[in-house]
């Protein structure tokens, strides 16, 4: 038993508590994915002046359940010439990458699965694992469209990680912490203390508000690119690449990709909420503030960001690859550098 004792120590000698803490976000993600799929269906329909699903349950609210059941029933195909191990591993790697990020997401001031000091850094590092899963899936499928989709995905990720990192770094400079709980705590006391509005401080912060506001938009755009959503969905652009990296996947494994995409959406929305929108803080100071209200505000804000992602998806057409690179390297990157420099200067002079 000596050899496994360190695991026991790592879990704080409380297996049940650890299991609950681990599985709570999983249940949340499952529930959230169903709601997000329904929201996607309904919002896309409403924007196009349709009604969307109306037949499954009242107003079609059981449609995502029906779709999950359909996906589970489908035949699970492994292509003959594919690399079996990598092909079967890829969807689970992607979902692991998406789910691992939930470890540091502060749902409320009382609940964060792992309160580590390098939270933001961890989220950022873990976020790249899903790109690895995409490359694995695309390459192992032994399909030229899958491979092209995977390559595009990686090139896109590299181009957009840097502006996103700049946005996160600026907040780290302002909050002088990478702990997501501390960043949330620093933004307490009302919405004017959120980092989108320059964070807490005296009236001098007016100089920094345009830059933090711009960085919020830059991070939002970059996070769209990281989750491969429209208008940055060139890795799975169906008019060019059939379905991109998941062309060959079906059944349960496709469901995993699908699920991971929605989980990823929530992760980037949660990071945006934590670093710019005040995390679990109530927008009205002490009004409705507390551990339970905290989780309510956090999930509400994240959901609003997810709704924004869905809204944009059904508004804008897809970028061309060269346009994508132009936006990434020539627009977002210099602008995020400028904002970062300005914020650093402000913090230095303050």
């Amino acid at each position, binding site marked *: 038993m000596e050899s496994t004792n360190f695991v026991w120590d790592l879990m704080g000698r409380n297996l049940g508590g650890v299991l609950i803490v681990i599985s709570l976000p999983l249940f949340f993600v499952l529930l959230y994915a169903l709601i997000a799929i329904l929201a996607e269906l309904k919002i896309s329909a409403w924007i196009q002046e349709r*009604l969307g699903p109306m037949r499954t349950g009242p107003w079609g609210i059981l449609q995502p359940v029906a779709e999950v059941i359909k996906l589970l029933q489908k035949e699970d195909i492994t292509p003959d010439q594919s690399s079996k191990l990598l092909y079967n591993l890829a969807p689970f790697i992607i979902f692991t990458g998406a789910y691992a990020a939930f470890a540091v997401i502060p749902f409320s001031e009382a609940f964060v699965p792992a309160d580590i000091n390098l939270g933001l850094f961890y989220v950022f590092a873990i976020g790249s694992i899903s790109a690895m899963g995409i490359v694995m899936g695309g390459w192992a499928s032994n399909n030229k469209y899958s491979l092209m989709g995977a390559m595009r995905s990686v090139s896109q990720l590299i181009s957009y990680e840097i502006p996103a990192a700049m946005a996160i770094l600026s907040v780290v400079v302002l909050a002088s912490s990478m702990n997501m709980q501390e960043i949330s705590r620093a933004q307490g006391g009302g919405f004017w203390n959120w980092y989108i509005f320059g964070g807490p401080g005296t009236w001098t912060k007016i100089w920094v508000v345009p830059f933090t506001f711009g960085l919020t938009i830059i991070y939002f755009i970059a996070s769209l690119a990281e989750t491969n959503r429209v208008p940055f969905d060139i890795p799975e652009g169906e008019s060019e690449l059939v379905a991109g990296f998941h062309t060959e996947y079906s059944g349960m494994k496709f469901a995993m990709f699908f699920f991971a995409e929605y989980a990823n959406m929530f992760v980037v929305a949660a990071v945006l909420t934590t670093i710019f929108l005040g995390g679990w803080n109530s927008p009205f100071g002490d009004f409705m503030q507390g551990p339970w209200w905290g989780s309510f505000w956090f999930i509400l804000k994240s959901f609003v960001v997810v709704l924004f992602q869905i809204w944009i998806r059904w*508004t804008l057409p897809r970028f061309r690859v060269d346009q994508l690179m132009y936006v990434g390297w020539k627009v977002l990157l210099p602008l995020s550098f400028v904002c970062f420099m300005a914020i650093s200067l402000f913090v230095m002079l303050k």
Partner: protein
Amino acid sequence: MIQYFKNVWSGFSSSLVGMHITFKHLFVKKVTIQYPDQRFDLPQNARNRLKLTMSRCNGCNSCVVACPVNCILVETVRVSPDDPHQEVHDNGKPRIMWVTKYEIDFAKCCYCGLCMQACPTDAINHTTEYEYSEYDRNKLYYKFQTLTPEQVTEKERLLAEFKAKDKDKDCKTTAAKADPKPTKPDQAEK
């Protein structure tokens, strides 16, 4: 440099314009019609499944002649004056022809409406019924005759009897020489 910022701004602002448009469309009244529960109002001159009003039909065959795809089949038997069962049309005139068969094959029908125009008594009409698709083509073969097969054979027998009697009378009055054939009515009966 100025052009660069103009481009960035126009890209950003135009996507905001697009989002504004889609946001407005979120709350617009939806165009979807939940079909089995809600339906379109059909136009006044909609031409759908045909309907025959037997009490008006006088078996004139105009519709059969007018039909460009030969989907109507009409067979008639004259009404025997000896028949105790006499009918009157909707317009008050006595029925002259029993319509023993009036069949329309809707698998062939092209819904042109020519039969309706040709009909002198307004007996055949388009309805607003359009949900009658079938798995079996033979089920689209509609029969509008009201007489049962037994009644039809009865009417045919009565007419044949009447004709035979009529012929006898003719023979007696005009020629007045040959004996009436005793077997003829029996044959006609079958």
